[in-house]
C-alpha cells in the first residue's frame, strides 16, 4: 500500500511538474506573442527610417544647386572665347551612386533660356540661369589625371 501511495504521489508530482512546465512554456509563448507586434512595428519603423535617411544621404538636390550655380557664376564672370574648366569629381561620384552611368550628360545647357541644367538623379534636373548674352558650347566631362573635369566654351550669343 505504501508503495502504491508513493507511486501515486510520484505520479501526482510528475503531473504537477508537467503542468507547471507547460504553463511555463505557455507563458514564454504568450510573452513572445505579446511582444511580437512591437518587434514587427519596430522593424518596419527602422526600415522606413533608414530608407528615408538613405534617400537623403547623398543630398543630391544640394549638389545640383551648387553645380548649377557655380557653372552659371563661371559663365557670368567669363569673356567670349574663354574655355572654362571645373573640377567635377563630386558630381560624377554622386551621379554614379544615383544610377546615372553616362556622366557625360550630367550638364545640359539651354542657350535660348540661358539656363544651366545639372542632373545627378534620374528624371530630375536643377536649372539656374546665367545673365550674360553668351552661348555655351562644347560641354564635355573628361576623365583626366586630376579626376573628372567639366569643360565648356563661352561664345558670343545673340540677344533673344
Amino acid at each position, binding site marked *: 500500500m505504501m508503495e502504491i501511495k508513493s507511486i501515486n504521489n510520484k505520479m501526482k508530482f510528475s503531473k504537477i511538474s508537467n503542468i507547471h512546465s507547460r504553463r511555463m512554456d505557455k507563458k514564454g509563448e*504568450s510573452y513572445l*506573442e*505579446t511582444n*511580437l*507586434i*512591437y518587434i514587427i*512595428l519596430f522593424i518596419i*519603423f527602422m526600415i*522606413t*527610417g533608414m530608407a*528615408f*535617411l538613405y534617400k*537623403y544621404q547623398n*543630398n543630391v*538636390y*544640394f549638389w*545640383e*544647386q*551648387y553645380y*548649377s*550655380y557655380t557653372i552659371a*557664376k563661371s559663365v*557670368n564672370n567669363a569673356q567670349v572665347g574663354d574655355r572654362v574648366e571645373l573640377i567635377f569629381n563630386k558630381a560624377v561620384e554622386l551621379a554614379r551612386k544615383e544610377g546615372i552611368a553616362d556622366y557625360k550628360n550630367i550638364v545640359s545647357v539651354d542657350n535660348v*533660356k*540661358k539656363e544651366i*541644367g545639372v542632373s545627378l538623379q534620374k*528624371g*530630375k*534636373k*536643377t*536649372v*539656374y*540661369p*546665367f*545673365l*550674360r*548674352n553668351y552661348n555655351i558650347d562644347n560641354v564635355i566631362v573628361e576623365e583626366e589625371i586630376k579626376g573628372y573635369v567639366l569643360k565648356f566654351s563661352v561664345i558670343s550669343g545673340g*540677344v*533673344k
Partner: protein
Amino acid sequence: MICFFKNRRGQLGDQISVIYFIVLFVIIGLGLFWGTYSFFGNGYDLREIQSKWLSDDIQKCLLSNSLDFTNKKEFFKVCNLNENILNENGFIIRLCKGNCYISKEEPLFSVNSNYQLCGFGELTSKNSPKCSEKNFTLKNQEVHLIVGSKISPKRLD
C-alpha cells in the same frame, strides 16, 4: 498575434500600450522627417549673393562707361546683360539720383517696378527679393542703385 485579436479574457491591458508605442513612432518619424527636410530640403538661398554680384557688376559697368540712360538697350549691350532673362526672372534694378525711396524724380534707369519691396528690409518669404543697395558718385551726381533678386534654382522633373 491571433491571441491578440481573439482575446476575450479581458487582457486588453497587456496590449493597450501598443497605441502608445505607435504614437511614439509617429512622433519620432515626424521629427526625423522634419529634421531631414529642414536641413536638406530648402537648399541654397542664392538671392542675396546674386543681387550683390549684379549690383557690383552694374556699378563697375556704370563707372567705366559713359552711358545714356534714355536708351535701355544700350545699357544692356554695354554691360553685357540679357534683358529678357533679367525681366523673366524678376530681377529688380533701379538707379536714381539721390535716394530711390524718397526721390520724386523719375529714375535714371529701371527694370521691373516693385523696388519698394527692397525697402522693407528682411522679408522672409521665399518669393520676396533679396536686395543690395549702393550709393556712389556718377558724373558728379550722387546716385542710388538698388538691385534685387528673387531667383532660386528650379528643380524640374
